[in-house]
């Protein structure tokens, strides 16, 4: 299998000398194309730092991060930006949308940065919005949307450039369970149908269990790395059925 991400002896230290704090210690890891990976750990465990390093948002103190075999630390910042822009998609817990802009404007932002012509970027944005089922809201202001709709816009923004990898940082953290499930569904569908590699940072065990690989982090080191062969078709939809069944049972008991 193709290694999309390979990490060698990764160390990240914040601060200097006396106040130095090592967030990640000597991490070795490789992620194959099409995997869905959950990075799980308590807050302060280093899971977010690891994601930032994998997503090339931060530079390691020591070690290497290879994206499709390309040594990222050797890239110029221009090429690094291009790599992120073309191959990565980001979904954040706090959404990060430009509130005053329309849904469409928000979705096509990565393509604007990539200097795509106006017509092409609008077409791509419309397609992405169709996938998240928000075609009807393209002209709405981002602030006028509900939380679930906002996160769907963010997913549309993450997939608008046809990325190889989607990084999701607590994607359901700000959502109630029903809307959270819908977001999870969307993400795993992309992983399954389009072969997009999915890397989810979470402390939510239920969400982590939907992934085929769970990496647990504590105090800056990987404490477990399990790959589970799952029938990916079930995942979120199964979870929702069981949830629905549970509610049904609860109602019957009354």
């Amino acid at each position, binding site marked *: 299998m193709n290694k999309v991400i390979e990490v060698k002896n990764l160390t990240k230290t914040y601060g200097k000398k006396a106040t130095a704090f090592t967030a990640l210690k000597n991490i070795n890891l490789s992620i194959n194309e099409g995997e869905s990976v959950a990075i799980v750990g308590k807050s302060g465990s280093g899971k977010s730092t690891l994601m*930032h390093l994998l*997503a090339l*948002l*931060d530079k390691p103190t020591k070690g290497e991060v290879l994206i499709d075999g390309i040594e990222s630390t050797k890239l110029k*910042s*221009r090429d690094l*930006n*291009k*790599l*992120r*822009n*073309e191959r990565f998609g*980001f979904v*954040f817990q*706090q959404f*990060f949308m*430009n509130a*005053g*802009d329309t849904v469409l404007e928000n979705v096509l*932002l*990565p393509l*604007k*940065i*990539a*200097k795509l012509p106006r017509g092409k970027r609008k077409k791509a944005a419309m397609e992405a919005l169709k996938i998240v089922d928000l075609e009807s809201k393209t002209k709405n202001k981002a602030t006028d949307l509900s939380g679930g709709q906002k996160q769907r816009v963010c997913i549309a923004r993450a997939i608008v450039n046809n990325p190889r990898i989607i990084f999701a940082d607590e994607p359901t953290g700000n959502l109630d369970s029903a809307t959270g499930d819908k977001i999870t569904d969307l993400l795993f569908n992309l992983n399954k149908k389009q072969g997009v590699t999915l890397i989810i940072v979470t402390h939510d065990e239920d969400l982590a269990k939907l992934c085929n690989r769970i990496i647990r982090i504590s105090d800056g080191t990987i404490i477990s790395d399990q790959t589970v062969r799952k029938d990916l078709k079930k995942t979120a939809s199964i979870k929702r059925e069981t949830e629905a069944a549970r509610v049904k049972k609860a109602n019957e008991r009354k």
Partner: protein
Amino acid sequence: MKLIDIIKTANHNLFRNKTRTILTILAIFIGSFCIVTTSATQAGINSFLDDQSAAFGGEGLIQMYGKKEDGNNTSAVQISSYTGAPKKYTNGDTNEMGLVAITPDQIEKVKDLPGIIRGSVLDGKFSTVTYVESTKNGEKFVPSLNLMTNDSVHFDLLAGKMIDNNSSENELILPSKEWAKELGYENEEDAIGKTLNFVWSDPVTKDLVTFPAKIVGVQAPSVISGGSMVINTTLNAKLYEENTKYLPATEKDKVYTIAAEYDYQKYTVDEIKSELDKIGLTAVTLKDIMGQIKSFFDVIITIFTVFGYIALLAAVIGIVNTLYMSVQERTREIGLMKALGMGRGKIFLSFAVEAIMLGFWGSAFGALASILLGSAVNSAAHTGEGFMQNFPTFNLVEYTPATVIPVIVTIMIIAFIASVLPARKASKKDPINSLRYE
């Protein structure tokens, strides 16, 4: 990001916080307004002076007078508060200017000077007249007479045409439209072609000698020719002959002023002046006269310019402040843009463009307001009792793309410079910390 997208986004971002943006634009507006108004006033005055200076002749023209013993020379060209109205004749008035005679020897020396163009030397045997009398209402006035010494001289005319020095007829140009009225004509057009009598009172016989002359033109108000009546050389020669009738031959040939052209491309005014000084002549050039007039207007212009730059300085601080606040508010947005692959240069540019847009809107509106107000003042000044009604050919403020566009561009450049620090701050932000910013 493409430049056009950066510009559009910057413009869009500006109006997210409307009040703040409008206040910043207002500060730039005031600065721009002052500066545009100043440069328009300067342009107005310059074009006025150019018109007026044509009455003095070309650039190389120099006028020479005999040097007085006490060295206290008064220029023959006086800048007086202009009224335009003629002075009434009362018995005993003279038209003496108190000038020192120039000897034929001095004239020969001037002709031999290397800087003076040979053949350009014109000895001004200026005539004088006791009074002029209207053939319409019989009113008598004292004019100061002026000669058109050189063909490059051009008077700004309200009506009629220039005098012809080669004509056998006596011709004159009236100093102003007020003269036309005082002489009994309805307006300046009405006076054209009419006859004005030049009267010389013979000092010995007390006889009155009359020379009828044709009014061919009426001058627009002029601060340089000082409201003097221009006569052609034909009339001048006749008057001069009469003026000097009783003088001995040596005195007859005395002249008080000579005009010449010098080679201004090879010699400086000062070189020519020092050469003339050795011969015993003082000289006045176009630049000397312009200098006197300009220094008067410079005071007004300086005050306006200082106001403009003070306002602009305040505006620059406003721009810096606005942008710093904008960078602070949009920290997370900057983080997102960086995460999505926007480079530092483009982040810098997007904030710099925002400042440039602030500069553009402020200066463009300021210029527009100045143009509107300026045109209103121009037309108000020229109508009815307006303070400029004596100068119909003079626009107080004059707007051309050449005066307005450089101001707008300069302010945009200043705005860009003001944006450097905040834009750098934005471009240096770390994407992760920015995204975590609350």
